[in-house]
């Protein structure tokens, strides 16, 4: 698989199809891989693919420093690829401007990340070329939202206590936002200060405002790549917030962000049969 990946990238760079390959590099086996930007065919041997390739590289597609490098090829796992669908629907990328190298993935991390345990997109579906083969099994909502369900079993007071303890550690580094491919606003609402909408202070009030607002802004958009959770230096399980909103979108609108290229975004479309029970 790795040879095929490198050969593909070498070809794309040599024939000039792309100017840069956004892929994974690694210092040593078993160490976390990190994003690299390969611009020369002779450097493709720096590319790796293994279960340490956590990053969702699509976050770089909307960055001006990376766009300045020229047309990219990007290595995506099935989960990351869902982001491309959302970015395209939200007019942040032109699909034709990106060469997508999908890579079959049976899960990352050792042990595998929670998202991988309930993954039904091991195989990329819309890539320009796909490397490798891994069987995909259907996964039901029960296993998709299992971790959330455990939290929802608790009383509201217990859940409040849980989130208060978690958010108390938030240092407002905004790594959750910066790593998120769908947090592409040029000026985030938390950075707006005339007037201030969200306290920038790392107090419980400010931290609740920030983390919940960010989750809401990703409602029915978040594809569940869990990069925010991986990046968080405070170990806050932000995944649970995102799962909660994803569950609502699936239950109310039969919508899972990034799964269907034809489906209109929940918050960007209206249908007569939309559930309006919440309007009273």
């Amino acid at each position, binding site marked *: 698989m790795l040879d095929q990946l490198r050969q593909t990238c070498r070809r794309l760079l040599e024939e000039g199809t792309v100017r840069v390959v956004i892929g994974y*590099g690694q*210092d040593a086996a078993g160490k976390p891989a*990190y994003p690299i*930007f390969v611009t020369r065919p*002779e450097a493709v041997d720096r590319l790796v693919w293994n279960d340490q390739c956590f990053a969702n590289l699509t976050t770089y597609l909307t960055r001006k420093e990376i766009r300045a490098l020229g047309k990219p090829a990007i290595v995506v796992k099935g989960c990351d690829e869902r982001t491309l669908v959302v970015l395209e629907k939200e007019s942040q990328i032109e699909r034709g401007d990106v060469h997508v190298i999908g890579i079959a993935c049976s899960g990352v991390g050792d042990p595998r990340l929670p998202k991988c345990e309930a993954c039904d997109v091991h195989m990329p579906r819309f890539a320009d070329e796909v490397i490798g083969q891994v069987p995909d099994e259907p996964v039901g909502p029960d296993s998709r939202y299992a971790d959330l369900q455990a939290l929802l079993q608790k009383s509201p007071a217990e859940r409040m206590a849980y989130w208060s303890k978690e958010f108390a550690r938030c240092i*407002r580094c905004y*790594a959750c936002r*910066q790593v998120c491919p769908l947090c592409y606003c040029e000026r985030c609402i938390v950075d707006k200060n005339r007037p201030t909408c969200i306290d920038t202070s*790392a107090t419980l009030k400010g931290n609740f405002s920030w983390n919940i607002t960010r989750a809401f802004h990703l409602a029915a958009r978040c594809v569940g790549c869990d990069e925010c959770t991986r990046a968080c*230096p405070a170990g806050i399980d932000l995944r649970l917030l995102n799962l909660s909103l994803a569950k609502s979108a699936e239950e109310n609108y039969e919508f899972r962000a990034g799964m269907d290229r034809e489906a209109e975004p929940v918050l960007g479309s209206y249908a007569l049969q939309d559930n309006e029970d919440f309007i009273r």
Partner: protein
Amino acid sequence: MNQIISQEALLAQINEWITRGARVIGPTRIKPDLIHYATLDSPEEILLDGFLRPANSIKDFLFPRHEKLCTYRFKGKQIELDDVELSDTEQLIIGARPCDAAALPILDHIFNWDYKDHYFNHRRQTTTIVTVACKAHDEHCFCTSVGLGPDAPGGSDVVLIELDDGGFEVRCVTEKGKALFADKTTPSDKSGTVPPGPEKKIDPKTIEDFVKNNFESPFWQEHTPRCLGCGICSYTCPTCHCFDIVDEGNAAGGVRVRNWDACQCTMFTAHASGHNPRTKQPQRQRQRVSHKFHIYPQKFGQILCTGCGNCARNCPVGLGVLSVLKAIGHAAEGDTSEAAHAEHL
């Protein structure tokens, strides 16, 4: 003769400190894979062994992420200000790493340069630092490259060196440290051994010369494209000390607060006019390295880095300052080979 304390006696002592009302802070397990310095409720929570170093730094307890500076109330056209009372509670940081403690004398300069920062200085006075010398290091550690080491005493009031039996040799560095451990130790001919630290990985002088002479170099663009522009490296760094001051309140009044800020964030240099002198991430990376290895040393004679490696271990894209420093080393030697390029980009 050395002075020693058994592990049991140290834990009993921690219990006594907690009981007498001190805020005792130490490394503790937050989650299965996350160790932080945090306030301890009982001595059982402290970790003295079996881990490299906490993922945060002790600066949060002297220069906290969020600090109230004063409160204000509008009375007609007048504004009434009230000072914030600072706590006199004794703070004891037990089990700090030398690379955390070493940051405090460095921070003393910035908080006492043109303005004496009451908030920081007050906590410095009420805080005693007991470090435990390092027994291990990883690929991100480079304390020896910036003049420190596994048992460097800078910033510590006491340095503990682990003995083979789990106890500690107690090396009191300051009067405050001596007072804390007075009558708590026993004389012994046992002594702790400190393994060698990490090999030297960079030369600060080379870095300083390079950043001085390569402000506009394409190096920065070539070596830092993966930086996402979050605040992790700065906020988990023992020495980074930049902050933002904002007012939070309503039409009746509010509070003026000081919050951590980071040079890697876009808004850090945004002017009120809308102009931003640092528009690109490579410029921000250049700033961070320059501040640590050129600007701060030039002004205060000390490197603004203790080589703890927190920036790299916490970075979601594996960047950190060391990989940039190593790349500078290669660039300064004129090594443009694929291997040199590949090693650090």
